[in-house]
């Protein structure tokens, strides 16, 4: 059967259409109160109102700052420590129990400390987001570095790149890149979850605006921000895939 290129798009549109249709039908036919679930047809008006008031732009700008900085700090720390523990057994043994103690603590559990250390301010939100990102990138990087083909490391040795730094630079990092990118991509989504959570306790941004709206039962506004997050995530993930495609262009 000749694969028609339009088929995936058509099915995707149909799926989304059906989803919106059921969503619209549920409150319209009284299956559920529209106070509990706003109709999709109400959303555009709520969106326009949020934009006009300037609240949307501010919330998105602030949240994007938290997101970007949290992602950057968490990913950087995750890559560095992942490389170190991946390359050095001694370093890994040293940190093994520290990791076991800290790993299961959810990002939200750090909120009291984040507030104490950074106040109810942007750095607190960035800290919470960075923690979530850190673990994902750390484990992905450590695993990818350890999985580097020994034969390729031998090539580095044979051509004189036998110091740890040279091996890393010439062979291990490029070889581990696909695995590290998987971790980074996972953390793109994880970081948005943390953004909302980190802003629940009062740092200005999308999460704070959603909390305000939900306490006023303005569910349509809550949905506006849910869809905003979805759109931003979709944009980032698409962008990430494009960059990843360039970085991994060598693969068949």
């Amino acid at each position: 059967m000749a694969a028609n290129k339009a088929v995936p798009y058509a099915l995707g549109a149909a799926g989304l259409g059906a989803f919106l249709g059921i969503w619209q039908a549920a409150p319209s036919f009284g299956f559920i109160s529209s106070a509990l679930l706003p109709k999709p047809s109400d959303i555009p008006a709520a969106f326009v109102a949020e934009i006009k008031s300037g609240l949307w732009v501010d919330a998105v700008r602030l949240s994007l700052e938290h997101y970007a900085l949290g992602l950057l700090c968490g990913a950087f720390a995750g890559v560095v420590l992942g490389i170190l523990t991946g390359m050095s057994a001694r370093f890994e043994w040293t940190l093994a129990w520290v990791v076991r103690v800290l790993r299961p603590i959810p990002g939200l559990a750090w909120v009291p400390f984040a507030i104490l250390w950074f106040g109810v301010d942007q750095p607190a939100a960035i800290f919470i987001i960075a923690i979530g990102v850190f673990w994902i990138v750390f484990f992905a990087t450590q695993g990818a570095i350890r999985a580097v083909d020994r034969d390729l490391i031998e090539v580095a040795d044979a051509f004189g790149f036998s110091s740890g730094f040279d091996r890393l630079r010439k062979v291990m990092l490029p070889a581990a890149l696909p695995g590290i990118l998987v971790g980074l991509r996972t953390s793109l989504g994880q970081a948005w979850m943390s953004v909302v959570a980190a802003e629940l306790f009062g740092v200005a941004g999308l999460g704070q605006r959603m909390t305000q709206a939900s306490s006023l039962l303005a569910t349509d506004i809550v949905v506006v921000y849910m869809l905003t997050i979805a759109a931003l995530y979709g944009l980032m993930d698409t962008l990430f895939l494009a960059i990843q495609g360039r970085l991994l262009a060598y693969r068949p």
Partner: protein
Amino acid sequence: MSADAIITIRDLALAFEQNGVRNEVLRHLDLDVPRGQFLAIVGSSGVGKSTLLRVLMGLSAPSVGTVTVRTTAGTERAMALVFQDARLLPWRRVAANVSFGLEKTGLTKAERRDQALKTLASVGLREHGDRWPHQLSGGQRQRVALARALCIRPEILLMDEPFSALDAPTREALQDELIRLWQSQGITVLFVTHDIDEAVYLADRVIALGGKPGEVRSSLAVEVERPRRRGAPSLSFLADRVKADLAAEADHHDWVI
């Protein structure tokens, strides 16, 4: 000790620890490799052939004995190694793979690429510099691996069963190409293989390692004029002698047990 030997090995023994047990793979090895010689080392697997190359490269230390390498340049880059599998770096294009070893030198990127393309041309892959390794056939990949080794202009080329994973026609083409490159560049080649016919066809001298731990069972000069003809009676005769030397020792070994 002959004065023109580029490699001198005296009473070398190689061993490694495995699960706390000392495993001796090679012992009592004495070897002089004259500059420019094509030396083949044959022997079954586990006899320490690959380990010997690693020691020569300085990647492993010998347990006992000395290895002296007398290169004129006196630099560490005087030796290059070709593995059984090509081991190209998949994220580098072919030309960047070939120039890999030059990144230790002070050459600029343009100079490195220039030298890489020239070397690629010498192995018949002039047009392939901008391809990815996965776009090449097995034989082409092994040519690239050979070019990567030759690109640093080594005085000694170490080859660890470099053609054993290739199909027969490709293997024969690469053997002849290697001979041509060796003759034109005046390098010393240490060629490890388990294929005795290949060793006799290629080399000036064949050393056969046998036993456990491995020892030299046979050392034979191949004084057959080049270009040689594959399967010529003079070569078959020598190959049979090497095989007989190794087989005699195997029988002897059975008796000892």
